[in-house]
């Protein structure tokens, strides 16, 4: 894959990767650092990506996840911060309504275990297949459906209780 093509694809994956990293690290700023480091690593060693083994998305998300795990080993986060995301392109009422819905969803997500948050983001936010999720999380592909279902049921319960 050409470096320019890779840069273009990576830029598109950045937001989802940031969402995943935020769920792992519990902090959007640390997550941005982790994604930045991962982008550096991916661009430094583009040949380590083998398109024959799958798409760029799971390959890059695996790098991001590993980087997050490295960061957790170095410094454990002391607090989870749920930050508001504003959208200046929308009207204030609509933006506020969506921001409120997102805030509740984030709170519900925050009540789950890290593995559950990750699997939900990978499937429902980033639209990875079960095989790709197994690759990113380094788990048996046969366990993805049951783990995901448990995570969704837990999230649904937490969401209703908020």
């Amino acid at each position, binding site marked *: 894959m050409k470096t320019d093509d890779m*840069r273009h694809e*990576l*830029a*598109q*994956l*950045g*937001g*989802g990767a*940031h*969402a995943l990293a*935020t*769920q792992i690290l519990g902090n*959007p700023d640390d997550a*941005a650092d982790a*994604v*930045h480091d991962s*982008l*550096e690593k991916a*661009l430094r060693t583009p040949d380590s990506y083998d398109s024959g083994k799958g798409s760029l998305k799971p390959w890059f998300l695996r790098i991001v996840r590993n980087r997050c795990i490295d960061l957790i080993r170095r410094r454990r986060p002391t607090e989870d911060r749920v*930050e508001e*995301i504003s*959208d200046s392109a929308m009207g204030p009422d609509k933006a506020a309504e*969506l921001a409120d*819905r*997102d805030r509740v*969803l*984030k709170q519900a997500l925050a009540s789950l275990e890290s593995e559950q948050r990750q699997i*939900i*983001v990978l*499937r*429902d*936010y980033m*639209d990875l*297949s*079960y095989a790709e999720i197994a690759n990113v999380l380094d788990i048996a592909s046969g366990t993805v*459906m*049951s783990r*995901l*279902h*448990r995570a*969704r*049921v837990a*999230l*649904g319960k937490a*969401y209703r209780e908020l």
Partner: protein
Amino acid sequence: MTKYSNSGEHVGELLSGYIDGELTQQERQRVRLHCDSCADCDSTLTDLRRLRQRIGEARLSDKDRDNWRESMDDTTVKATRGIGWLLLIGGALIGVGVGVYEFIITPSTLSFIEKLIVGGVYGGMLLIFISVLRQRLIERKSDRYKDVEI
């Protein structure tokens, strides 16, 4: 491990596989038949679909594509700038070293005292330059308002 059948047992995790399109034809048929006769599973299926849609529509990251594109540009700029600085400082050090060596060792019409004075002037200029450069670099790093456009 959950057992699935058409005889009334809930289909559990197959509901997730169903909405994700990850089931075989036979499993999909089993889920459809079960949900037709089980209000609980049918309701769970609706909830899961709604939740999935809700997550898909959410903004879980405040950083857009342009942010990451800039981030990658920044990485390239930093890498090339680092190499540039390395070459510049390396070349300057070698140049100054050779100059000092030549000035001290090479026989010339200048006496030792005169060499000392000239050396002192150039050495002083170099020290002042390094001092100012260091101060500027510290200010640049610690200035919280450097990115503010006026």
